[in-house]
């Protein structure tokens, strides 16, 4: 018996020198990563840092271009998801893969060699242990997102997984559901399962992880036990090295004496209650809050997309009452939704057609003037720095950042007085992000009122003149001027009242 029984446990997973190149661009540059049994290892990194790519390599979705992977000490090749499953590596994807028409039980059994009887015998204790209570014979379409995630966890456990990868599991969960999930993750870790936890929320990471790794531009820049690190260390590690700040810091303006361009009074819906605030011309009002705090629902209600919302919304002093998007737009309010693919862009059509979609009447009564339309397009391509070969290039072939700019062009074409931006920089690269920031500033300078919703608190802190903090469907308060710091906003988002009401 050696004394190193605990000290030298074989890691479940060891990756070394992992490289991955996508169309000539290296995404991972010699990454090292390891996972011990029974640990929750958080993997942090900004958009495009390579964390999803690394996890997809472990889960067999992508093949690595160079590097080695060892599983329980033995060198392995994982070239398909089923090969990963066979080893006991299971990834719980950000968006659970469900078969909505099939029952929960059928969903769980898919790809497993068990008959119905044996399957339910195996499923029940696993569900019991996870405190997952649901009817096995209901179609999966009826499950909530949190339950769908549990479904994925059960799938992993049925495959006797010893490595579970959670890819941003909390991004669609409410605060309480997230707490339940963390509890279950801890319980699984206690049973010796190694858990990789991907998140961009520092608070969660500090709360559940035993160890933290930070990826930046395909390089592992930090690794250490959570108790030895502060949130500040993590933020610093994630930021780009040379240029800490992407653009010159904002000069925050106080609210001017002018009349509000948008006024919200006593607005309530299922997801939030009694919202009251004013947005002044030339102001960027940030809305901070965790997912599930009611931010997006608030924006949708203001934009007239929620028929059940109650309360009053005034644009330029004139009330909008459940007018729907077309009328809101005519009154000068545009909403740029979070999911541009679902709600914002015509992917198959010429990029130009998305840009001009909301101003067609201006381009001609019956027949459209191609010349006028192209002129509008060219103006936005120049002013927003949109990179495309031609105005007629299908929007779906543009990069994420350029797609977002096309969506913004569509919103700006209506010359709005109020623009609501929901996660305007989600999934776009650094340079496009800088352009979007510049645009937001320029809009404010022109006197447009900007309501900026973002789960990237840095972005809110950076751009906003005032910040409205939401927590569990309520507006906790308003931060102004000097009070707008990352710490204050983060704290407030987690429900710490320390904000002036």
């Amino acid at each position: 018996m050696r004394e190193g029984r605990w000290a030298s446990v074989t890691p479940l997973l060891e990756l070394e020198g992992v490289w991955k190149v996508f169309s000539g661009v290296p995404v991972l540059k010699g990454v090292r990563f390891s996972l011990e049994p029974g640990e929750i290892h958080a993997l942090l990194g900004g958009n495009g840092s390579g964390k999803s790519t690394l996890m997809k390599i472990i889960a067999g979705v992508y093949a690595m271009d160079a590097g080695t992977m060892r599983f329980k000490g033995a060198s392995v090749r994982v070239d398909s998801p089923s090969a990963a499953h066979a080893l006991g590596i299971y990834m719980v994807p950000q968006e659970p893969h469900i078969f909505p028409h099939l029952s929960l039980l059928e969903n769980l059994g898919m790809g497993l060699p068990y008959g119905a009887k044996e399957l339910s015998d195996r499923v029940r204790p696993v569900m019991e242990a996870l405190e997952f209570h649901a009817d096995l014979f209901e179609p999966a379409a009826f499950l909530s997102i949190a339950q769908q995630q549990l479904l994925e966890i059960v799938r992993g456990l049925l495959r006797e997984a010893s490595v579970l990868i959670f890819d941003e599991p909390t991004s669609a969960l409410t605060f309480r559901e997230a707490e339940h999930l963390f509890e279950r993750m801890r319980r699984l870790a206690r049973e010796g399962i190694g858990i990789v936890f991907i998140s961009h929320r520092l608070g969660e990471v500090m709360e559940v992880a035993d160890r933290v790794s930070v990826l930046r531009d395909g390089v592992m820049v930090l690794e250490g036990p959570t108790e030895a690190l502060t949130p500040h260390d993590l933020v610093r590690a994630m930021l780009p090295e040379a240029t800490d700040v992407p653009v010159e810091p904002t000069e925050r303006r106080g609210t001017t004496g002018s009349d509000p361009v948008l006024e919200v009074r006593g607005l309530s819906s299922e997801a939030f209650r009694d919202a009251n605030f004013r947005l002044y011309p030339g102001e960027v009002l940030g809305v901070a809050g965790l997912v599930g705090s009611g931010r997006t629902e608030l924006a949708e209600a203001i934009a007239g997309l929620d028929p059940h919302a109650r309360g009053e919304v005034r644009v330029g002093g004139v009330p909008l009452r459940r007018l729907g998007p077309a009328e809101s737009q005519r009154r000068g309010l545009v909403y740029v939704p979070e999911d541009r693919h679902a709600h914002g862009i015509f992917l198959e059509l010429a990029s130009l057609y998305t840009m001009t979609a909301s101003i067609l009447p201006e381009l001609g009564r019956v027949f459209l003037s191609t010349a006028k339309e192209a002129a509008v397009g060219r103006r936005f391509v120049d002013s927003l720095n949109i990179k495309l070969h031609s105005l007629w290039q299908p929007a779906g072939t543009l990069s994420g950042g350029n797609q977002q700019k096309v969506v913004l062009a569509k919103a700006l074409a209506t010359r709005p007085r109020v623009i609501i931006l929901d996660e305007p920089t989600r999934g776009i690269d650094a340079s496009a992000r800088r352009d979007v920031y510049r645009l937001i500033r320029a809009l404010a300078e022109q006197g447009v009122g900007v309501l900026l919703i973002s789960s990237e608190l840095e972005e809110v802190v950076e751009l906003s003149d005032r910040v409205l903090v939401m927590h569990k469907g309520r507006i906790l308060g308003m931060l102004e001027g000097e009070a707008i710091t990352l710490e204050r906003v983060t704290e407030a988002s987690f429900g710490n009242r320390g904000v002036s009401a």
Partner: protein
Amino acid sequence: MALLLILLVVATGFVNPNILRFKSLVEILNASLTLVLIALGEMFVIFTRGIDVSVGAATGLAAVILGTTLNLGWPVGLAILAALSTGVLAGAVNAFGVTFLRVPPIIMTLGTLGIYRGLMRIITGGSWIENLPQSIKDPNLWGFLGVPFFVWATFLVLAVTAWTTLRFRPARFFYAVGDNEQGAYVLGLPVRATQFVAYTLAGLFAALAAVVYTSQIGFVSMNAADGYELKAIAANVLGGVSLTGGAGTPLGAAVGALFMTAVHSMLIFLGVPGIWDNAFAGLILLLVVYADYRLRRALELQRRQARILGEGGGSGG
């Protein structure tokens, strides 16, 4: 859907009681067999979220092969085997194009629709195949308890298909692939093989239909089973097979096909002039699909409301 069918037949019965005679009902059943078989094959393709518009042509082609080989003096068993192989091959060609060449299903099968119809003319030189030996026409005259042999046979095929789809584990793959292809891949299911089998089965069922068709009609025209591809798709929709994949049952598809045929028979019993036939059939199809859609919506809404009420405060798990 089945209820609506019975309702419609009974309603027709009030106007013309002749339809309710055993003989008339059997007649309707007998006339629906070709479509039932084609629709069952089509169903597998639709399960996987695909579409096959060449099934009618595949039926025609298999019928031509059957007729030609019979007239060459092949024994009936061998000729049927040749016809079935033709169907399987026709389906496999579609499957190859869709799963390996990645041609969109509607384009691939539109192409083969032209090819299979063309092959029929090339093989026969454009003339009908007549004077078929009695050996192929005989089974149509067999019967048991006053019900023709082919009705029993089709019923058996339906029963086997229904049981298999319900219990045979790999059959579940058809639903899974159509419901969420990406999800199926990630869980390690053989996505392409599943799609391949679906199109091949569509070909096999088309060939089975060709055997019944040829035996019943007694000759093969160049228009054999023309337009059946669209009727088969409509039958599936009527029977609750979702065009967006992942939902439906063989029984539903068969009842849908029966319905499509019954409507025509009912119009005859109601004394509607022949020239109105297609227009009425189309109208009834639309009405039924719309009524069915509203009914399903209402049921689902009720179910959801019950769920929300039942959960009350709700739980986190």
